[in-house]
């Protein structure tokens, strides 16, 4: 599968990663263009989360390279902090800081990392909270919010750094169905703003609706990728077919 975009915003080139003897990413190659939304689908343990963690340099890769705007960010010895400033990440379990208010959760990185004045960072935070209908929660602590609200705050926290790419790691997996919708709305909004996104998700209907490209991972390999219509209605590979058949059987598509 060749690159769709001549110059990819993000490019994974034959990335390998193993934990002990277990190969989690096996020669993964993937291009993501600017403003593109790519969904990673696949069974649990297929390597989706590890892939996102590797892009954010939370996990060092064993071999291969990861290019951001033409710079190899996975090169051993490369300082990860400047990269992480440009790449936002949202986790399945929200990971908000429980000892800080919502507002402080959001302004922490802009003030500490980007050295923005506090007042300016707070203003940006309020604007973002308002956009996502959370402004009345600015003074609350994470424990006082519902799961959906916490996850939206986590997204706002990542957005406050004005990242060029957002990585979303099964952000709705810990939420009950009623709350999933509000988080998906936020992601739709981000798409509308032209954010480049890579999502790992089990929400197949949502993947179909939102993504420009769907990428199926199986046993650490990108087995098949393509536009959602094609992937969901006419997958070429038997593994993809099997996976989607099982998803449909469980009523999740």
């Amino acid at each position: 599968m060749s690159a769709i975009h001549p110059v990819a915003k993000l490019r994974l080139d034959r990335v390998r990663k193993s934990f002990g003897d277990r190969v989690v990413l096996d020669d993964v190659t993937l291009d993501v263009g600017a403003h593109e939304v790519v969904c990673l689908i696949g069974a649990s343990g297929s390597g989706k989360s590890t892939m996102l963690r590797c892009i954010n340099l939370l996990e060092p890769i064993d071999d291969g390279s990861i290019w951001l705007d033409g710079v190899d960010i996975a090169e051993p010895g490369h300082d990860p902090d400047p990269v992480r400033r440009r790449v936002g990440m949202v986790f399945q379990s929200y990971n908000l800081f429980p000892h800080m208010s919502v507002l402080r959760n959001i302004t922490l990185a802009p003030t500490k990392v980007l050295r923005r004045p506090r007042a300016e960072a707070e203003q940006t935070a309020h604007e973002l909270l308002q956009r996502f209908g959370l402004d009345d929660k600015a003074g609350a602590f994470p424990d006082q919010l519902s799961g959906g609200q916490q996850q939206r705050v986590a997204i706002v926290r990542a957005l406050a750094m004005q990242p060029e790419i957002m990585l979303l790691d099964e952000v709705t997996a810990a939420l009950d169905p009623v709350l999933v919708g509000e988080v998906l709305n936020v992601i739709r909004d981000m798409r509308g703003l032209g954010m480049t996104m890579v999502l790992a998700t089990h929400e197949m209907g949502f993947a179909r609706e939102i993504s420009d490209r769907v990428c199926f991972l199986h046993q650490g390999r990108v087995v098949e990728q393509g536009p959602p219509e094609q992937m969901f209605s006419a997958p070429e590979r038997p593994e993809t077919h099997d996976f989607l058949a099982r998803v449909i059987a469980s009523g999740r598509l």
Partner: protein
Amino acid sequence: MTGSTPITSDGADARASAPSRSGLSRRAEYDLRQRRRSTLVASVSTVLVVAAIILFVPMMPGWDRVRASFFDWDTFTDSLPKLWKPFWLNIRIFLICAPCIVVVGMLVAIARGVRSPALFPLRLFATVFTDVVRGVPVILWITLIGFGVPGLFSERAWYTKPVVWGGFALVMCYSAYVAEVFRAGIEGVHESQRAASRSLGLSSSQTMRTVVLPQAVRRVVPPLMNDMVSLQKDVALVSIIGPVEALRRAGILVSQSFNFTPYVAAAVLFLLVSIPLTRLTDHLMARERRRTSGTAVS
């Protein structure tokens, strides 16, 4: 209906829906009965135990001798005022050592967690420090340092006083214990918190300062307070190298009066400080439990 408890379904319904005479819910009524019952049981058993002590201890053959030499009221009222001032020295040693211990303990805990290879010696030192310090009794450290270090100086100055080096030994020993408490707290902060912080671009030291330590410290306040309560008592160990604090002064009074009551008076002074500290610790622990685990299970 003749039975004391309603058996028929409409009887049960009536009981459930009608407000009880006291105006309390069934649950509250039940809780109230239970509480009264436990209070009664607790009071009766306490009275029995105390009565047994009051009745039986004086029946022991040597009670009169022991009472005369340990619980002599005149000696007690005589020695207590003489112990105030030396006890103030205990308090001062405690007040100076405690903050030092918290600071040194936290630094050692952080040093033990350092993963940078350049700082490996620091980590090694911190590990050896906690192992060696905790492996020797506090009283032995106080003796070794309190008698040994002042010998290094030829002149006499404030820094050659035994009390200074006794305090130093206390800080050293307790820092090692407190460092382990902090380390447990730091390791108790979930890895995902670190991941979230790093993914936002914060450096590892910024992550430590703003995300990990504040959460760790909150968790370790109760065990830390426990260590402070025992420090408050262990200050008395400094007496073995010379400073006249409460325990030593009491010992002097004992040898002057040939009566052990001054020791009891000293014990009362220690209790005056340690009981409020212990109560505060329990209060903090209960608050922490409520905060982290919701409803208590009896």
